[in-house]
């Protein structure tokens, strides 16, 4: 499995027609029609990609063992030679493609994540989501690691993501890789139940101008982007986007104060070619959120990231990345936080030698958290500097023909518990080129966050809630078995069964003096199945579907005085499924349907629901696209999370969007 897939087709494609790139996706579906622009682009790309000599012969023979279909899916312009092999990764990986996002008609990153059958996505209100994999779903969920272009976006405040702070321009997203299950050996603590990698397109692929505008009964949104060249071998893009979402309503029709608006501007610049390239990117954003208390919550932030990839003559690959990330969150009446993070990492993929492919690396992360507490609650100490350091090594060993073992370990330190040991072993067997059987054993750790240790209510003694002085890391030992196959070129599917054994999960212990502290007195198991597949009926019609079944069995340890109950950890359905159909009625007209079913949530009770979304797309010309998305057609409104009667409901929605490329 590749670590952070390095997504840079940085070859000089500057001579291509400026309209060629947006055409790609369309062309892919209508593969019998190769437009002149495409052919031109293919020619240009081929000319520029084809390098002069060949020193390394490492993978040539390996490729000969792939099927024709798999060969046709190898990305030949990616820097990391391990990135190409995502489809061979011995783990549960679902990839949301750019085309999937476009044809779903979604307008936000959390909504796009609903396309992954291995994710639990529940809308809590207009500006808040609960997103998890394999259970423990919670608006402050803490077992999922999320990265945007290699930048970790979870907050050390609670080891989860503020989905109303972190954002991307969806039109510029290349793909979203969703890995369910532990990825701790490569990604570190917090990659317990899953990893989400949001990968934006290289600047070379977003040249020219783009203008998008949309309006619906729930929101308005607009975005502009412009991309150009930088010198001989560089490209850039700048973008800005903004949106406004309306307040939601409760079941009784009263309004919830959760509407919000946000603006974000950013850029990305890439230099270099396939064997050496450099990326610089950054964003600045700000948003105002309605809140129940007087005033408005304000979120602001900025980030700047640099990444350098180098393929060496030896065939080895090197990657160095550094970023700075500031987030500011001001919730009047609750708290105000300014968080600065500096993160540096280094990764070295050693030229495969004999039966071994070694990948190793190291990372360091520094955070300075400054909290202004309110009377109601406090993080104590209010100001805290924290750092994390890690080293990891992984070896992929070819045991026999078709059989390989990937074993690795990461050692990561954190400010609360010192060093954590995160090993994993994955076995992959390919009985033939179009089938993969895999199994994995991993140990994942959720290291304490500030919430687990430093959280007090009220902000001065006597405390009702007195932090978690003894809170230690939560541990999950995980066994997974999976099967992936592509029996014919039009059909592919994946099935994964998993069993997680948890220990030291967070509990709320009542002390003799009447105060409550966080401790680790819950244990138990999570088992389940994830499956998905796709079938290309014709070149113009594609069907796909997925499901997940989950069985959680959590219990208090003997002697626990927990008062929160195991349900405080998450509120999950025991099953969910989805079906999608994407159809080109004509080359210019698209008709897409998605049906989603999510089982009921136990505590607090949320009824099961089935949502049907439709999208009609019309390509008026090569540069102009109009689409109408209708969401939740079946019912006027339904809740997805939280307790009645105060919770928000998700109402029927319509959104008309115009996309214009120049």
């Amino acid at each position, binding site marked *: 499995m590749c670590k952070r897939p390095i997504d840079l087709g940085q070859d000089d494609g500057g001579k291509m027609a400026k309209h060629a790139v947006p055409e790609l996706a369309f062309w892919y579906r209508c593969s019998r029609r190769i437009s002149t622009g495409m052919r031109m682009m293919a020619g240009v790309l081929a000319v520029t990609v084809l390098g002069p000599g060949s020193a390394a012969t490492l993978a*040539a023979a390996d490729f000969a063992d792939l099927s024709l279909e798999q060969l046709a899916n*190898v990305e*030949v312009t990616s820097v990391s030679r391990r990135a190409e092999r995502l489809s061979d990764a011995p783990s549960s990986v679902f990839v949301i493609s750019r085309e999937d996002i476009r044809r779903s008609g979604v307008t936000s990153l959390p909504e796009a994540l609903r396309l992954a059958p291995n994710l639990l996505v529940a809308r809590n209100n207009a500006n808040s989501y609960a997103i998890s994999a394999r259970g423990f779903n919670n608006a402050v969920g803490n077992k999922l690691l999320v990265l945007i272009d290699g930048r970790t976006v979870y907050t050390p405040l609670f080891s989860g993501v503020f989905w109303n702070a972190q954002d991307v321009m969806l039109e510029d997203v290349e793909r979203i890789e969703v890995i369910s299950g532990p990825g701790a050996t490569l990604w570190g603590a917090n990659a317990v139940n899953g990893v989400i990698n949001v990968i934006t397109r290289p600047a070379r692929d977003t040249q020219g101008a783009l203008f998008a505008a949309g309006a619906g009964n729930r929101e308005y949104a607009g975005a502009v982007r412009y991309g150009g060249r930088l010198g001989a071998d560089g490209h850039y893009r700048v973008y800005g986007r903004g949106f406004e979402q309306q307040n939601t309503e409760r079941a009784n029709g009263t309004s919830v104060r959760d509407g919000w608006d946000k603006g974000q501007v950013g850029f990305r610049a890439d230099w270099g070619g396939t064997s050496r390239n450099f990326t610089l990117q950054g964003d600045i954003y700000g948003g105002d959120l309605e809140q129940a208390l007087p005033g408005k919550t304000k979120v602001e932030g900025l980030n700047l990231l640099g990444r350098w990839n180098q393929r060496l003559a030896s065939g080895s690959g090197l990657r160095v990345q550094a970023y700075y990330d500031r987030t500011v969150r001001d919730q009047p009446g609750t708290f105000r936080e300014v968080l600065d993070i500096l993160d540096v990492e280094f990764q070295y993929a050693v030229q495969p030698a004999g039966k071994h492919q070694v990948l190793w690396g190291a990372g360091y992360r520094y955070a300075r958290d400054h909290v202004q507490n309110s009377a109601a609650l406090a993080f104590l100490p209010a100001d805290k500097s924290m750092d994390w350091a890690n080293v990891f090594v992984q070896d992929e060993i070819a045991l026999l023909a078709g059989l390989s073992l990937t074993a690795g370990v990461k050692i990561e330190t954190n400010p609360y518990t010192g060093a954590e040991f995160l090993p994993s072993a994955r076995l992959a067997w390919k009985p033939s080129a179009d089938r993969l059987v895999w199994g994995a054993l991993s140990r994942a750790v959720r290291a304490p966050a500030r919430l687990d240790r430093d959280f007090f209510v009220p902000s001065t003694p006597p405390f009702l809630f007195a932090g978690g002085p003894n809170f230690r890391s939560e541990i999950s030992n995980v066994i997974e078995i999976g099967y992936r196959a592509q029996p014919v070129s039009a059909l592919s599917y994946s099935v994964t069964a998993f069993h997680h054994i948890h220990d030291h999960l967070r509990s709320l212990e009542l002390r003799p003096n009447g105060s409550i502290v966080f401790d680790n007195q819950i244990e138990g198991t999570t088992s389940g199945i994830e499956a998905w597949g796709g079938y290309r009926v014709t070149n113009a019609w594609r069907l796909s579907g997925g499901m997940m079944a989950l069985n959680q069995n959590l219990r208090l340890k003997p002697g626990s005085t927990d008062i929160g109950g195991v349900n405080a950890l998450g509120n999950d359905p025991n099953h969910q499924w989805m079906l999608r159909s994407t159809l080109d009625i004509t080359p210019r007209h698209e008709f897409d349907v998605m049906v989603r079913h999510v089982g009921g949530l136990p505590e607090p009770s949320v009824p099961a629901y089935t949502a049907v979304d439709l999208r009609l797309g019309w390509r008026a010309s090569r540069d102009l696209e109009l689409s109408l998305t209708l969401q939740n057609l079946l019912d006027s409104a339904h809740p997805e999370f939280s307790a009645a009667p105060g919770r928000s409901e998700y109402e029927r929605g319509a959104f008309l969007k115009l996309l214009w490329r120049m």
Partner: protein
Amino acid sequence: MGRPQGGTVRWTVLLAAAVLAWITGGQPSTAEAAEAAATLEHRVKAAFLYQFAGYVEWPPATFAQADTPVTIGVIGADPLAAELSQVVVGRTIAGRTVTVRRIKAGEPLAGVHILFIGRAESTRLVQLSQTAQPRSILTVTETDGALAQGSVINFVIAERRVRFEVALDTAEKSRLKLSSRLLAVAQDVRGGGR
């Protein structure tokens, strides 16, 4: 936002080179050498060429004996020929070993079963195709518009992947039978009323 100063870039590259030299035990790490490293595209095309042999049926008289090797000729693409030579070591197609032969302009095509015409020789594509067709040689190219010039299979790059298009009518004229699996993977199939 702007292009970094030349000095900054140079400083970064120098520092990086020093780090690399340390890590790799002094292996060469100059940008030039790195640029010269084999691209994935070569390897994928080489793997395709080898695989194609398994999806083509030649006229019965093509192979003298049951163990006559399948010969892949490569013209105008030496780096790819080098990759292909690595690929075919120890591999067989339907019981036949596979050999790779580098062909220079003007050399005869006798004994060749698959002919890859690299971009460097694309100007002679029509002539080579005309020579290959009566000999039932499967011509494979990597040039835009090559099918119209008599090639049977042409590689294209699409969505950063190596794909290929097939001219079924040309294959029929060459008395080559292409398997339906091959056609299913093809990006585009022309002619032959499929």
